[in-house]
């Protein structure tokens, strides 16, 4: 099989808050036979500006990101919302820009959420990975509704030996993160994530898994504040065989 050369778009949140997710992504991609490059010019995809109405900054960051990513045959992102920004919103941003629209569309068409890439494009599944635990899964909204990420993580996780699943009531209900929403309207966000944390606790699972670090930090931060014992990981960490390391909030 031909080696696929892919660019990893790390995302600013993973870069800053949990580098392990970036390394897990590289490990899983290499196991799936990809050659991974981390393009130098990347920072933030511009999603916070885009969702706050700051169109000028969103456009500037989108142009920078497109320029950094367009040399590669595929771009893989360990986040449904950042992948969704590039895939769905970049072409909208440049709708009336004849010079940038084709470039935006080209990068958008080659950008994949990591679990969709591994499962659907590579047809890969983890082998020899073991985590003895009961997990529950939260479907992050952007990945679910913009990219249709639903079955892919579950198919991949099914191949992690020793891992059992407890269904999460309201698994498709927003956790209340919403990017800047959680700091602009903290009291409403708290009410939403409070219910989510209760639902997670009620599953009796050991682990909370999801595909977006923002949502995971919101849920894990609330679980920790309420004294829950549930530990949170990005699903790719388990898939890459890094589920034996520190969970979110256990590092350092």
């Amino acid at each position, binding site marked *: 099989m031909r080696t696929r050369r892919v660019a990893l778009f790390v995302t600013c949140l993973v870069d800053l*808050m949990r580098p392990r997710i970036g390394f897990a992504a590289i490990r899983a991609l290499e196991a799936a036979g990809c050659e991974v490059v981390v393009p130098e010019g990347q920072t933030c995809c511009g999603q916070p500006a885009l969702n706050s109405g*700051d169109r000028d900054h969103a456009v500037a960051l989108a142009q920078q990101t497109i320029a950094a990513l367009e040399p590669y045959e595929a771009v893989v992102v360990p986040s449904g919302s950042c992948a969704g920004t590039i895939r769905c919103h970049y072409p909208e941003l440049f709708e009336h820009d004849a010079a940038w629209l084709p470039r935006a569309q080209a990068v958008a068409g080659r950008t994949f959420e990591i679990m969709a890439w591994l499962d659907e494009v590579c047809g890969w599944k983890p082998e020899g990975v073991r985590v003895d635990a009961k997990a529950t899964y939260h479907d992050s909204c952007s990945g679910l509704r913009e990219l249709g990420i639903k079955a892919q993580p579950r198919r991949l996780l099914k191949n992690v030996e020793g891992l059992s699943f407890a269904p999460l009531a309201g698994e498709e209900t927003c956790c209340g993160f919403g990017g800047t929403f959680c700091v602009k309207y903290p*009291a409403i966000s708290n009410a939403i994530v409070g219910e989510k944390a209760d639902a997670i606790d009620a599953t009796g699972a050991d682990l909370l898994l999801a595909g977006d670090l923002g949502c995971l930090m919101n849920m894990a931060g609330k679980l920790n504040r309420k004294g829950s014992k549930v530990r949170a990981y990005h699903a790719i960490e388990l898939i890459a065989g890094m589920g034996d390391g520190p969970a979110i909030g256990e590092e350092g």
Partner: protein
Amino acid sequence: MSSFKERADAALADPILKIAVERTAGTAEAKRAVAVDAFPDFEAARDRAAAIKDHVVAHLGAYLEQFEANAVAAGACVHWASTADEACRIVIDICKAAGAKSVARSKSMLGEEIGLPHALAEAGIGRVETDLAEHIIQLADERPSHIIWPAMHKTREQVSALFKAKHRSPHEEETIAAMAESARRELRTQMLGADVGISGANFLIADTGAICTVTNEGNAELSLVPPRVHIVTAGIEKIVPSMPHAIHMLRMLARSATGAALTQYTTFYTGPKRAGDRDGPEEMHIVLVDNGRTKMRAEGLTEMLRCIRCGACMNHCVVFRQIGGHAYGGTYPGPMGSVLTPALDGLKQSRDLPNACTLNGKCQEVCPVRIPLPTLLRGWREKSWREGLEPTSMRWGLGLWAWVARRPALYRLGTGMAVRAMHMLGRKGWISTLPLAGGWTRYRDIPRPAAQTFMAQYKKEERRK
């Protein structure tokens, strides 16, 4: 006037409100899911519904003229109102000409939008709200908190207490049936004594000139048929080309709103009483109201004119489910309200509404006419940013972030330092207070980041290879 945040805080502090909203919205959500599952190819039906609305909105003038001609041929009078005030004035003038002392009103959100209850009171015309939930609202002197269940913010226990305080011969048994009977006793005589019946319209049928109302209580029929005059106030976007189109929209409306296949009462009214008819009003007036709708079409909100007022978006909205409808402060709450209110009341007063949304996309997923609500909300955010209405702290914060993020070398330096500082702040892996992040840490902890960013660690590893 209170701010959105103050109203939201008050709502969050009200445990009874939470119970009331959850009971009704939870039931609606579950029933809708069952109804949609049982519907053969609901997705194709949504496409068709959206296409019907897009078609009429694109040819609004032609269909409205066709409607007018057919309604007039059936004996109705058609009036055109470009603003809320104008619409109210037309209604009041008709009531005065009819010598009306009291009107029976069948629930209409457009009536709320144009301020009709207030205008009637100012004109000294008595008003009886005949929809059960609107009756509750009238007794409590409140405003609707939901477009389908105006009294959804009240529990049945609260309603029982209200009836006991206000009804002349209230229920004794604490059952829903006894409470409904109490309302029936209270309302019947008032309804039958009204001089004018006022309704909205769920649909205006262009090729027959008929208007359609849907209710589950039959109150529209009892409010509109006995009085001498029937007045309809309807938004101009309610038009559909023909009966089959109306039927398709009805199938979508009922399922999306309550999960029922059809409402208990679906009635088409074509003109006033004709020679030989045993009953019906002597006059029928239809007031077609613009109130900003053609402007919405010109300002990139065309898709919002597809809305058939089913309420599915708010029933499925995580924010609405926490704060209820009153906190939104406009006539229409929830996601559709957050798109409409800035258009109706001005963005300056309502900039919080499009922002107070997680953009999770659930509203768009359940919308029977596929309105891209998150996109429209993002559009308002853009306008608000452009017009300088967003708070300075947010502008500065995002501006600084974007400025640094556009300079990758500086960004690496800055993020490296920030991460190290945060790493030193945390104990046992979690940070419970952080400067400038109070909105987060008031309610949840922040995981302590690793000592170095991914980019720094990755470069170190690459050099080692």
